[in-house]
């Protein structure tokens, strides 16, 4: 081990892995909490939907598109003042979560909107015919019917967040990506680079296969 990977400091790798998992968990939680209602709002106010609101949909849609078109690296830097305001620091795990959430929420909201559009209109009509309120339609019909699609959206978002966490290393965000940049790239230690990339790959694999299993579990079609 010592001769094969001479520069690898295992306790540091372990700490970086934990940081990555914390960033991922924290940012995914807030992304889902914010993105799900935003996705529902986009769906309901969208064209030919229950609450078609051209103006509101236009504004929310534009905001989402603007955030999605800012490269994440730029967003990381632009967000620094706001991050300091929210968490008190722009460094470490806490400093990385706000830009991750802001970067991933619009993306996740669009995926949720798409998943909701996949729900058969007939099911919405049937629920309306039962006398359901809009809130009841969302809670009792739309979200349960779109659950497999939403789980798939969470999976894709989680994997996107993994690559974002790697980028947040650039502003001192910590984690495996930070390690890869500082040791692997800047000090040219290919063994450190290799270990971090393999660990990230394993993480992505686990996320994808767990997500796929959950989608199958929730699909009743």
């Amino acid at each position: 081990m010592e001769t094969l990977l001479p520069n690898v400091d295992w306790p540091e790798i372990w700490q970086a892995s934990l940081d990555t998992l914390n960033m991922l968990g924290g940012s995914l939680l807030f992304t889902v909490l914010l993105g799900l209602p935003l996705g529902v709002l986009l769906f309901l106010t969208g064209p030919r939907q229950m609450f078609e609101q051209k103006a509101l949909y236009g504004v929310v849609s534009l905001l989402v598109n603007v955030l999605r078109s800012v490269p994440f690296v730029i967003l990381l830097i632009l967000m620094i003042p706001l991050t300091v305001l929210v968490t008190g620091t722009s460094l470490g795990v806490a400093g990385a979560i706000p830009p991750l959430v802001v970067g991933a929420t619009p993306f996740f909201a669009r995926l949720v909107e798409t998943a909701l559009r996949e729900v058969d209109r007939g099911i919405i009509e049937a629920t309306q015919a039962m006398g359901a309120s809009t809130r009841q339609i969302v809670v009792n019909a739309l979200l349960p019917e779109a659950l497999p699609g939403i789980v798939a959206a969470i999976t894709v978002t989680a994997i996107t967040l993994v690559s974002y966490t790697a980028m947040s290393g650039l502003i001192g965000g910590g984690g495996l990506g930070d390690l890869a940049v500082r040791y692997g790239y800047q000090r040219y230690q290919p063994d450190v680079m290799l270990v971090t990339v393999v660990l990230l790959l394993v993480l992505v694999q686990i996320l994808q296969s767990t997500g796929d299993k959950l989608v199958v579990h929730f699909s009743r079609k």
Partner: protein
Amino acid sequence: MPTRLHYKPKRFNRVIEFQSVHKAYRVSGQAIPALQPTDLRIARGEVFGIIGHSGAGKSTLLRLINRLEEPSGGRIQVDGIDATALDADGLRRFRQRVGMIFQHFNLLSSKTVADNVGLPLKLAGQLSRGEIDRRVAELLARVGLQEHAGKYPAQLSGGQKQRVGIARALATRPQILLCDEATSALDPQTTAQVLQLLAEINRELGLTIVLITHEMDVIRRVCDRVAVMDAGSIVELGPVAEVFLHPRHATTKRFVLESEHVDEREQHDDFAHVAGRILRLTFQGEATYAPLLGSVARETGVDYSILAGRIDRIKDTPYGQLTLALTGGDIDAAIARFEGADVHLEVLR
């Protein structure tokens, strides 16, 4: 007789009434009419059928009843309530009293059969969990699906799915059941079973059923009255036997011919070589079983041969339709005799 005090005159009780209701869709700034101004009365406890080709406006008409479609004008009274004047809250409570079933069943794939049936009760929020479970068990027994309570819709056949749809529509004990092409996605045998179930429900619960279809056979099997729609208007309306045995509008005639798989022109060509006068007799009700042909033949000395014919039922009304060729004897007397009898006579040649 004290029991008479509980008797309510049902026959003349209007449960659904349209007063010059019309509907137009706005498509890129232009108004496309879907329903021309329509007046319609549907009586309590009847099975009312609406038949028409796709785009005739029948689906719009049905959805106006529970306001899944908003009318562009006119008044809709349902069970004494002005449905057009309801606010959002009133509309929700109103809809709980009108059941609806659909061509593609529209069951929630993520919920079990029992949860699908219980959903309207859960949404209404008036019953406890235990009461809902009991009502669901009762409804599943009614439609014969007790053993399937824990299954998901994807595990059921089409006919079973529609039974779940029916149980779900009946959950809140509605007065009215709307059927949107409820059998169009089913095979003929399953269609017959579902129609039989609807007829039973109508009889046992006194439920008013409004159904739309493009199949004559559906109307013939279960409906009391029928409205024929064409290009957004009701073009003919009356008791099913009346409308289908004596169709007046071109659309109605087309439906009748389609359902009998007969091309009238072709049939007339077939009779070209047949000698004598050709008549068509239509019997309805008890007259269907009267020995009319034999007695007319004896009295007037004519010979008859039957060129085409069918004897069938429209819901509970037996009817017969015979095409005859008459030769020899006193043909005019025979025709006069038929005219005097309890049959509908058409002289074809």
